[in-house]
C-alpha cells in the first residue's frame, strides 16, 4: 500500500471513528463509572510525568533565555518569553508528546489485545457497542482531562523556569512576572487550550483506531502500538503548525 493510500485510509478511518463517537455523545447514555475510570487513568495518572517533562523543558528554555537576555540587561523579558513559549509550544506539544506514549500506547495495546483475543467479539455478542464501551469514555476523558493536565504542567514549567532563572541570574519573582503581563494575552491562553483539546482528541482517536486495526497476534499488537505512537507524534507537529498558522 502506498503512503498516499495509507494516509487516506488512516484519515478516513479516524474521521469515521470520530463521527461515531460524536453521535454517541448525543444519542447514548454514557456510563459515569467508565468515564470516571478513564479520567483517572488518562488524566490524573498522567499529571506527574507530564509536569516533570514540562518542568525540565521550562528550565532549559529559561536557562538559554536568561543567559542571553541578562547580557542585554533585559532579564525582565525572561518571564514573558517563557510564558509565551510555554503557552504556544511547551505545554500543548510537550504534553501531547508525553501523552501519546503514556496514554496512547496503552490504549492501542489494550484494544489490540482485546481484538486478537476475541474480547471485542465477546462485547458484540453481549449486545455492547465497543465504541460506546471503549472509545467514547477514552475520548471524553482525554478531552476533559488533558487540558487539566496541561494546567499542572504549565504551573510546573513556569515555576521551574523561575527557579532556574533566579538561581542563574538572581532576578526576583516580580521581575520574572512583570514581563509576562505585557507579552502574553488571553488569545495565547485560548490557543494553548485549543491545541490541548485538539491534541487530546487526536491522540486518543488515533490510539483507538490502531487498536481496532491490530491483527496477527502479539507481534501485530506491538506493530499497532508503534504505528499509533509514531503517527501521533507526526500529527501533533502537523496540527501544531496548522493551529498556530490559523490562530496567530
Amino acid at each position, binding site marked *: 500500500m502506498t503512503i498516499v493510500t495509507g494516509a487516506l485510509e488512516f484519515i478516513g478511518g479516524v474521521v469515521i471513528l470520530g463521527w461515531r463517537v460524536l453521535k454517541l455523545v448525543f444519542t447514548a*447514555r454514557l*456510563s459515569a463509572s467508565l468515564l470516571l475510570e478513564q479520567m483517572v487513568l488518562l488524566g490524573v495518572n498522567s499529571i506527574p510525568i507530564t509536569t516533570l517533562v514540562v518542568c525540565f523543558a521550562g528550565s532549559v528554555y529559561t536557562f538559554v533565555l536568561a543567559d542571553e537576555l541578562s547580557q542585554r540587561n533585559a532579564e525582565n523579558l525572561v518571564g514573558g518569553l517563557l510564558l509565551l513559549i510555554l503557552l504556544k509550544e511547551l505545554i500543548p506539544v510537550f504534553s501531547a508528546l508525553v501523552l501519546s506514549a503514556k496514554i496512547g500506547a496503552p490504549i492501542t495495546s*489494550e484494544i489490540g*489485545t*482485546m481484538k486478537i*483475543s*476475541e*474480547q471485542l*467479539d*465477546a462485547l*458484540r*455478542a*453481549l*449486545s*455492547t*457497542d465497543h465504541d460506546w*464501551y471503549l472509545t467514547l469514555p477514552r475520548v471524553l476523558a482525554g478531552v476533559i482531562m488533558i487540558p487539566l493536565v496541561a494546567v499542572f504542567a504549565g504551573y510546573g514549567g513556569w515555576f521551574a523556569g523561575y527557579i532556574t532563572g533566579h538561581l542563574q541570574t538572581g532576578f526576583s519573582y516580580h521581575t520574572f512576572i512583570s514581563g509576562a503581563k505585557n507579552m502574553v494575552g488571553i488569545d495565547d491562553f485560548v490557543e494553548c487550550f485549543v491545541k490541548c483539546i485538539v491534541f487530546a482528541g487526536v491522540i486518543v482517536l488515533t490510539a483507538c483506531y490502531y487498536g481496532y486495526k491490530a491483527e496477527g497476534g502479539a507481534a501485530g499488537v506491538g506493530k499497532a502500538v508503534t504505528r499509533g505512537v509514531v503517527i501521533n507524534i507526526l500529527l501533533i507537529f502537523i496540527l501544531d503548525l496548522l493551529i498556530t498558522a490559523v490562530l496567530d
Partner: protein
Amino acid sequence: MIKFEDVWAGYGDHLVLRGATFQCPAQRVTAIVGPSGSGKSTVLRLLMGFICPSKGRILVDGEDVTGCSERQWQGIRRKMGMVFQNSALFDSLTICQNVGFYPHYVERRPWREVRREALELLEDLGLAGTEDKLPSELSGGMKRRVALARSLIYKPQILLYDEPTTGLDPHMTEVVSSLIEEMADRFGITSIVVSHDLPSIYGIADHVVLIDEGQSVVVGQPRQLLTSEDERVIRFTASWREQIHSFSDRGNHD
C-alpha cells in the same frame, strides 16, 4: 429453531461455506462437527452476525436475520449467548464483573443487585470464591464455566458453544459437557455446539450436522455417526470408529 438455507459465506475471496443447508431444532442440543477448517466456526460467526453470508438465508425462530444491520443485530443478540473457544473473558475485569457485565452495562441494573445474582450463578457452576479473581488466575475449565455464566445470567434462548471442550482434561471435558446438557434440559435453551470432539458430542447431542469442505451433511442422531453410510461421515469418523472397534475387541479378549 435455526435454519440455514443454501448459505454461502467466507472471508474475502476465500469461500468457507458453500451452500450449507440444515436446521437446528429448538430447545435441543445440535452438534456441528467436521474437520478443522471446514467452516464450523463460520456457522457460529454467521449466527452471531459477525459476518454476512454472500448468498442464502439464515432464519432464527422464523425471523430472517440475513443482511441485518449491526444495530438490528444488537437487538437479536439479546436472546443469544456465545461461549468462545478461548472463553474471551474481559481480562481487566474480575470474574464477578465479567459475569455481571450484561445486566450492569446493557440492562443498566444497579451493581449491588447484579453482584448478588452473579455470585449465585458462580456458586451454581462450582466457582464460589473466584468472584474477585482475574481471568488470568483461573484454569481453562474454570474460564469456560465463567464464560457460560456470563451468557446464562441474562437467560438467552439460544446458546452457541465454540469448541467448548478443546484443551480440557477428560474430567473437565465431562464437567463442561454435562453443563451443556443441563442448560438445554433445565432451561430449554437451544444449544449449538461446534466441536470435533466426537466422544463428548456423542453423549450430549440430540442432533448432529457435519460440515465437510463447506458443505453440510445432516447426520441426524449421534448414533448415526457410527452407522451412516455417507462417505463424508465415514471419512470424518474413520479413526473414531476404529478406536471403538479396537476397544471392543480388547474387551472381548479380556
